[in-house]
């Protein structure tokens, strides 16, 4: 990035000598002895300057494969086969050998940034550490460079962020810190595990440009794990499709997207939500109960109080303002999409709506009950009717509880189900979110990112709430699973008539799910209105930028010249 003198080499050359080549790669987690391994006989190669997209079903072994290569798997995991990086065999190399490679020659952006950043050190400290350890920079130089890196990934107020701790950042901000950390030493190979799931489309576009630029200008080889076919189409050169631990298809992006050979790839592509498509199909919003139809006029209409009514809500963290003067209503049976810039206060708003965050001012009413001043005890009866899917599923699941226990807990608390009936209900919930009911005995760390996310969704749905706050509920899901989950949500909503605040960066998904959309930026609500109107005819310039930046599979795959 900062070595412009190094001209990009020619592509043909690169393809001939991949910098990273995995062949017959197998990853078997402890406890999988009897079952199939998480990754089975995967072949993979990526050349300098090439962007390889790794796509596939959630839980198909994408993370396992890439982390296995670098030995970043839990102790006791068996990694077999071969993975050669720059002429060096990595499998069986041992911690000492791998240490020289990690961070410097091969860097990683982890899928779940919250748990992957060290909670007790400042962002600046964690960034500087890489620079000082690998590049021997002095404190001041490292600081300046860290700042530069943050600006590169589009974080504003870099100076303040450097002093902050991970828990003070929004999901997208953390993700960008992870990216900055991985880029710090100009690695030869960059493994980015769903690096843009928490980013709004404009920021995402910037990051993707940045990655593409790295590949082109510095010859960095990039393995990009993603679910977003638009992203694949936009930046990747080649793509490998994984299914159940094996690669089912690979090839040039244009070819795979244009003429998929494998069944699974075809299904995958068919499930990709397309912006503008759902309004044409028109299904969910039109089918939604009457309240949804009244759109912006909904608040107060009908006899039932709205599921959520937020008035003039502001939240301050010390001197920083996360949310300022936001008013928003979600009627029963309605889904309101909340989109906006990363760090604009969406999650904060969501947390206020479920009573986890005390607003600095303003009011929040759920189903007609004012909750902003309620004590925890008074709040508890309301909990059943308000549920949240957290943006960061990994940290929202209790590491010491099996997911079965976690799902059964609220059911037992609020529901009459006991014993076998309870077990059946838990199994049904898991099946609803397309998880194997046998997985209920597993602990959170034994799941893939997308699987965890589905557990979190199942937990929120267990109690059939009146208001569901879903904070990026499908960001870690591949499009086929996402499709099914979205279908599930719509069907449930039709049946139970709950109100839903749906926070997402994926405009196509928002379009599909919501009758109305609210757009946030810098803590303020800049635009709100019926989905069709906002997405087709945005009033605010920021909304316009968002729409323009939205990636699309249908966009011409990246020119290969």
């Amino acid at each position, binding site marked *: 990035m900062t070595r412009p003198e190094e001209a990009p080499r020619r592509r043909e050359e690169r393809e001939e000598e991949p910098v990273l080549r995995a062949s017959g790669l197998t990853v078997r987690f*402890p406890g999988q002895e009897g079952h199939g391994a998480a990754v089975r006989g995967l072949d993979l190669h990526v050349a300098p300057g090439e962007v390889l997209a790794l796509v596939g079903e959630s839980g198909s072994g994408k993370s396992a494969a890439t982390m296995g290569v670098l030995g970043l798997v839990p102790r006791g995991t068996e990694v077999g086969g071969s993975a050669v990086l720059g002429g060096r065999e990595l499998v069986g190399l041992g911690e000492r050998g791998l240490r020289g490679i990690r961070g410097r020659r091969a860097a990683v952006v982890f899928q779940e940034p919250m748990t992957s950043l060290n909670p007790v050190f400042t962002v600046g400290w964690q960034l500087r550490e890489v620079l000082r350890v690998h590049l021997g920079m002095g404190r001041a130089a490292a600081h300046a460079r860290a700042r530069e890196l943050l600006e590169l990934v589009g974080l504003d107020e870099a100076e303040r962020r450097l002093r902050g701790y991970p828990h003070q950042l929004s999901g997208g901000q953390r993700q960008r810190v992870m990216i900055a950390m991985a880029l710090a030493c100009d690695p030869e190979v960059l493994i980015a595990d769903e690096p843009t799931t928490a980013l709004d489309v404009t920021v995402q576009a910037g990051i993707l440009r940045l990655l593409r630029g790295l590949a082109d200008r510095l010859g960095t080889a990039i393995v990009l794990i993603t679910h977003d076919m638009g992203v694949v189409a936009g930046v990747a050169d080649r793509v490998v499709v994984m299914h159940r631990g094996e690669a089912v298809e690979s090839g040039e992006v244009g070819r795979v997207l244009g003429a998929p050979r494998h069944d699974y790839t075809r299904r995958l592509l068919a499930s990709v939500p397309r912006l503008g498509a759902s309004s044409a199909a028109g299904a969910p919003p039109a089918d939604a109960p009457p309240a949804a139809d009244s759109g912006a006029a909904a608040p107060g209409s009908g006899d039932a109080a709205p599921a959520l009514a937020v008035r003039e809500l502001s939240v301050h963290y010390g001197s920083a303002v996360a949310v300022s003067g936001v008013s928003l209503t979600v009627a029963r049976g309605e889904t309101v999409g909340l989109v906006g810039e990363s760090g604009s206060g969406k999650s904060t708003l969501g947390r206020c709506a479920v009573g986890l965050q005390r607003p600095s001012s303003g009011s929040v009413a759920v189903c007609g009950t004012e909750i902003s001043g309620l004590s925890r005890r008074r709040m508890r009866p309301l*909990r059943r009717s308000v549920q949240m899917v957290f943006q960061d599923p990994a940290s929202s699941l209790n590491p010491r509880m099996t997911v079965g226990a976690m799902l059964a807990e609220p059911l037992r608390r609020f529901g009459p189900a006991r014993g076998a009936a309870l077990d059946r209900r838990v199994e049904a919930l898991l099946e609803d979110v397309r998880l194997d009911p046998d997985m209920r005995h597993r602990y959170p760390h034994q799941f893939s990112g997308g699987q965890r996310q589905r557990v979190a969704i199942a937990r929120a749905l267990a109690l059939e709430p009146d208001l569901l706050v879903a904070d990026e509920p499908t960001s870690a899901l591949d499009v086929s699973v996402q499709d099914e989950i979205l279908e599930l949500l719509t069907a449930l909503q039709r049946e139970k008539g709950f109100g839903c605040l749906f926070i997402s960066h994926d405009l196509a998904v928002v379009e599909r799910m919501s009758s109305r959309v609210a757009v946030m930026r810098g803590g303020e609500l800049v635009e709100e209105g019926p989905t069709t109107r906002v997405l087709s005819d945005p009033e605010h310039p920021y909304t316009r930028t968002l729409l323009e930046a939205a990636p699309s599979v249908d966009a011409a795959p990246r020119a290969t010249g």
Partner: protein
Amino acid sequence: MTATATPARRLLRNPAGAFGLALTVLLVGAGLLAPLAAPHDPAAVGFDRLYAPPSWASPLGTDELGRDQLSRILYGLRASVLIGVAAVLMAAAVAVPLGLAAGYYRRVVDPVVSRLNDAVMAFPFLVLAVGLAAILGPSPVNAAVAIGVSQVPNILRVMRGEALRLSGEQFVDAAVAGGAGDAAVLFRHILPNAANALLVQVTVGIPAAIIAEAMLSFLGLGVQPPTPSLGVMLSSAQSTFAQAPWLAVFPGVALVLLTLGFNLLGDGLRDALDPKGAQR
């Protein structure tokens, strides 16, 4: 399958944990069955066999009153295990809920509980013990109570620290958002994640309690002579170490083994309860 095995089965599958369990069961069992297992009456003095070194008749030698040491160790295990374990368990029963609550409700509960805890900590153990003996009257049960009270602050502070640390975690928020009542949050979500620290504190507390029992017995608050306890045997062997080292060595070994058993068992439980540890 490890993924599906219950903690109990995982404990048994872990060699160190299983050994710890076996050792604990063996020693505790030997203590409880002392009346059956002991070759002699532990109180039977023999003025003609004072300080006899180990022999066939008395495999571990005899003590300053010619009593059979093997029998005394078996009975001593019984007293020490009952008092030590009971004390620590009582302490944990009190300290765990209070400590968790203090770490979780930081505005109201913490100042009250923590300051009371400071006060109990500052109370010298001896004043406490002598005072309790005076008020309750001497008995092994009251000894266990006194030791238990003195162990409360330790467990309480550890649990409070853990609750403090864990209440910042998002899964606690998630549980609250899921409608978990405070008790559920504390005991189903925070406590299991604090189990490591608790297990360690309990397993290190037991030998400390056994040694403290010796001091209380000395004050007349614990076991009544000639009833033996490991702590009493150890401390009374002090002055005759040069003449009769076996009087110190064997009870010492018994205490070490008991501590070993509890600690291995604790480690085993730790690993069995830790879903990540279980995989190693």
